[in-house]
């Protein structure tokens, strides 16, 4: 019997699990997927917002403003790259100036500090590649960029190091309420927990429906993006927003922490919660819409496009509360933007809620808040590089030529707690296949390293989910004359 079961291992679930791992609690972290950070966390803008967007008094505004300043220490402890590059919400006409001014006022009401409206000349100096229709912008220095799955993976690793038990491939099919506890049933097993925290993203309403009458609905709202080559990453220096309209925040342009240029998203309500396909018309819309920000975006440098689903709640605000009907069941639902920014503050709030529910929590003496990232070989000084290669020659073998990922880094990503077991899992953790060749050269190598380290056959290695097999068997002549499959 666990004290707490966290359902959903996205950035919300992993950060809550990690926060709870500070205390003497038996915590289970569950996910339907083959890996953590495989839902909305995997596909969003990766922006740590300042907090001027959301309506004053809303959960979105509150947790956004509380969450933003927590990222410095959090990313320091979890060794996650975070850059406060600041954001600019740009007016591209005098008419839009009013919107910028409204955002400024709303920001003040939400308690966002440091906001400033900058005029054309200063704006042009900061961002020379913006269209010259830009008239002014709201500058928010505390806005930042992060790799959203990196923070979730780091939190999951640290949670597991501190005793949280992680159950992957655990799609919750039903939850049985019993006196004072819950039985959580999946296809291949079940676990018991006294408390359930529902962080199931687009599926949160379904999980809620297993224990209580529906009180909200989650509609998946798809957003599509382009990722451009690193050669395009310097186009802008800040996160560039357009003025928000009824339809949402609009298409943004930013560089990513890895130096790529990110352009998107659009917003489209859909029905199927598993539909992650990109569409030509929506991508064309993103392209046209981004043209309002800058005509200089080199779309011939696109390395990939992707889409993500926002978990949009019918309540229009984050649903963060204990069910009145099912005590001990806590919803953390409808966490769409600015959910990533809000995540650490939500984790604190849930901790406080549990302290209230349980009448206090006892701290663990041996909690270790620190997690070390996989070594990024290329970012080290040369002396340190050579020292590492002497210790482990696998640091001298570059597997991914585009991102300069070493064999040692891939092996490390596989053998960590909550380590990579799939090609996409390796890609999310250490980035081979994220570069310009998109895995063309390194994928065969990554397959072989995964098979070797996990002691599996290469044909058993999947791309992402359990049924995403890559190879369909051996060629006709394999095996003739002994070892034909090339050794690494």
């Amino acid at each position: 019997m666990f004290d707490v079961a966290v359902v959903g291992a996205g950035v919300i679930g992993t950060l809550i699990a990690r926060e709870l791992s500070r205390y003497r609690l038996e915590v289970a972290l569950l996910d339907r997927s083959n890996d953590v950070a495989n839902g909305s966390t995997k596909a969003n803008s990766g922006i740590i917002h300042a907090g001027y967007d959301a309506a004053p008094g809303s959960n979105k505004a509150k947790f956004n403003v509380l969450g933003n300043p927590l990222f410095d220490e959090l990313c320091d402890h979890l060794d996650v790259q975070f850059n406060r590059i600041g954001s600019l919400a740009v007016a591209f006409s005098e008419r839009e100036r009013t919107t910028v001014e409204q955002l400024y006022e709303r920001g003040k009401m939400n308690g966002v500090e440091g906001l400033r409206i900058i005029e054309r000349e200063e704006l042009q100096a900061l961002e020379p590649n913006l269209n010259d229709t830009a008239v002014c912008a709201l500058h928010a220095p505390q806005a930042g960029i992060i790799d959203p799955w990196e923070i979730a993976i780091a939190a999951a690793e640290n949670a597991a190091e501190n005793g949280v038990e992680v159950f992957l491939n655990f799609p919750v099919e039903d939850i049985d309420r019993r006196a004072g506890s819950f039985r959580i049933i999946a296809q291949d097993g079940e676990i018991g927990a006294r408390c359930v925290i529902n962080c199931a993203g687009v599926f949160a309403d379904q999980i809620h429906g297993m224990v209580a009458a529906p009180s909200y609905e989650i509609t998946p709202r798809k957003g599509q993006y382009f990722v451009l080559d690193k050669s395009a990453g310097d186009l802008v220096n800040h996160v560039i927003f357009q003025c928000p309209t009824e339809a949402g925040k609009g298409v943004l342009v930013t560089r990513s922490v890895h130096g790529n240029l990110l352009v998107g998203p659009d917003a489209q309500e859909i029905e199927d919660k598993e539909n992650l396909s990109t569409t030509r018309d929506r991508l064309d819309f993103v392209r046209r819409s981004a043209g309002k920000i800058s005509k200089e975006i080199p779309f011939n440098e696109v390395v990939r496009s992707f889409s993500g689903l926002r978990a949009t709640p019918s309540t229009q605000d984050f649903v963060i509360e204990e069910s009145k009907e099912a005590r001990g069941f806590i919803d953390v639902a409808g966490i769409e933007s600015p959910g990533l920014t809000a995540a650490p503050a939500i984790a604190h709030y849930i901790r406080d809620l549990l302290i209230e529910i349980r009448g206090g929590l006892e701290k663990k003496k041996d909690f270790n808040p620190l997690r070390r990232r996989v070594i990024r070989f290329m970012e080290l000084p040369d002396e340190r590089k050579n020292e590492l290669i002497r210790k482990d020659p696998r640091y001298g073998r570059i597997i991914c030529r585009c991102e300069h990922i070493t064999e040692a880094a891939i092996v490390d990503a596989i053998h960590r707690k909550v380590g990579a077991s799939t090609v996409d899992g390796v890609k999310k953790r250490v980035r081979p296949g994220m570069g310009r060749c998109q895995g063309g050269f390194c994928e065969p190598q990554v397959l072989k390293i995964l098979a070797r380290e996990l002691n599996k056959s290469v044909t058993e290695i999947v791309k992402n989910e359990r049924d995403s097999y890559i190879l369909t068997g051996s060629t006709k002549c394999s095996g003739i004359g002994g070892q034909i499959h090339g050794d690494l």
Partner: protein
Amino acid sequence: MEIYDIVVIGGGPAGMAAAVAARQMGIEKILLIERDRELGGILQQCIHNGFGLHNFKEDLTGPEFSERYIQRIEELDIPCKLDTMGLSITKNREVVFVNSREGLKTVKARAIVLAMGCRERARGAVNIPGSRPAGVFTAGTAQRLINIEGYMVGKKIMMLGTGDIGLIMARRLTLEGSNVIAVLARKPYPGGLMRNVVQCLYDYDIPLMLQHTIVEILGKDRVRGVLVARTDENSLPIPGTEELYECDTLILSVGLIPENELSLSAGIELDRRTGGPIVNESRETRVPGIFACGNVVHVHDLVDFVVEESEMAGKGAARFVQRSVECADASIALLPGRGLKYVVPQRVTAANVEDGLDLFLRVNRVYGPSYIEVKDGRESIKKVKRPHMSPGEMERVRINRRNIEKMKGSDLIVEAVGVEG
């Protein structure tokens, strides 16, 4: 810091041929750097035949062809560092590389030859919408998995693009028992060599669907089908013509891109038409002493021509080290005019042209009876007839040294012109 006369980056056919040529010119201290565990580059996975017809007057497989050069490298005792990745080069010709044995190392070169080859365009670069399941491979990756690793990539296969590797792989997959449903070409003509279309598709009854493309990839975990549409005269999909083809695998053969990240690290100027460095008659880039050859300069269709070009680069680098040529002023510009996609070399130093200058070029559409014309300003200095030209087949034209010496202007313009009727 260790000093070499010539450092060659890349141990495929281009790098090997350049190293051999440089050694034959009497250069002692050569170093060849190769990423893989063996020399040969992509040729090692090209187990089909058709290599060496020009060069050796023999019909060899890829590994057989590369073996000839590997043997020469050994005979000439040219030192190679295998399993070694070149990380950066500088304008003053320092090369940084890394491997497991020596760690990170910087060496100085009197001349550098870049021979890094090319990479395949991936799905993102051609922007095919849809889901992102397993089962989408580039033709070269599939080739490696099948021919080197010994694994199959799928049972029911759709192929998009008609690059040569794709055509070869359609046949290879068929021989391994897969069902190749069709090969799609966006344009009204195939992208690869006609001989590959005949020998790999026609001979195996694999349908070639010209003017078709994929508008959506379907399938959640693994590919379960693709939506195929006809394309119009601008090669864009025509709405309403979509048809579903069920398949478990999609192979992409949609173009190759010269791999020039190292070149950029030294500030070498690239030609946006070829994607490779701007080079002169001896394949020297715009940075003195740094040469380039093979698919890193422009994508070739035959390894024989890669080797030929690499010998020019190897000799050029050797002469640079020996200081036996006039300093390259490269004052003549070669410009692709009407009907041309590109021409290589892009610059020429008149004094360094020996008996003639070979121009390598590609046209930008299919031509019937036609000719290639080279002009000095408005004046025609060379005109050669062609019965047929296609972007998939590289053309070459030779102009005499005399023509270059007699030039009035500083630009040579190369054009393709169709013959009426």
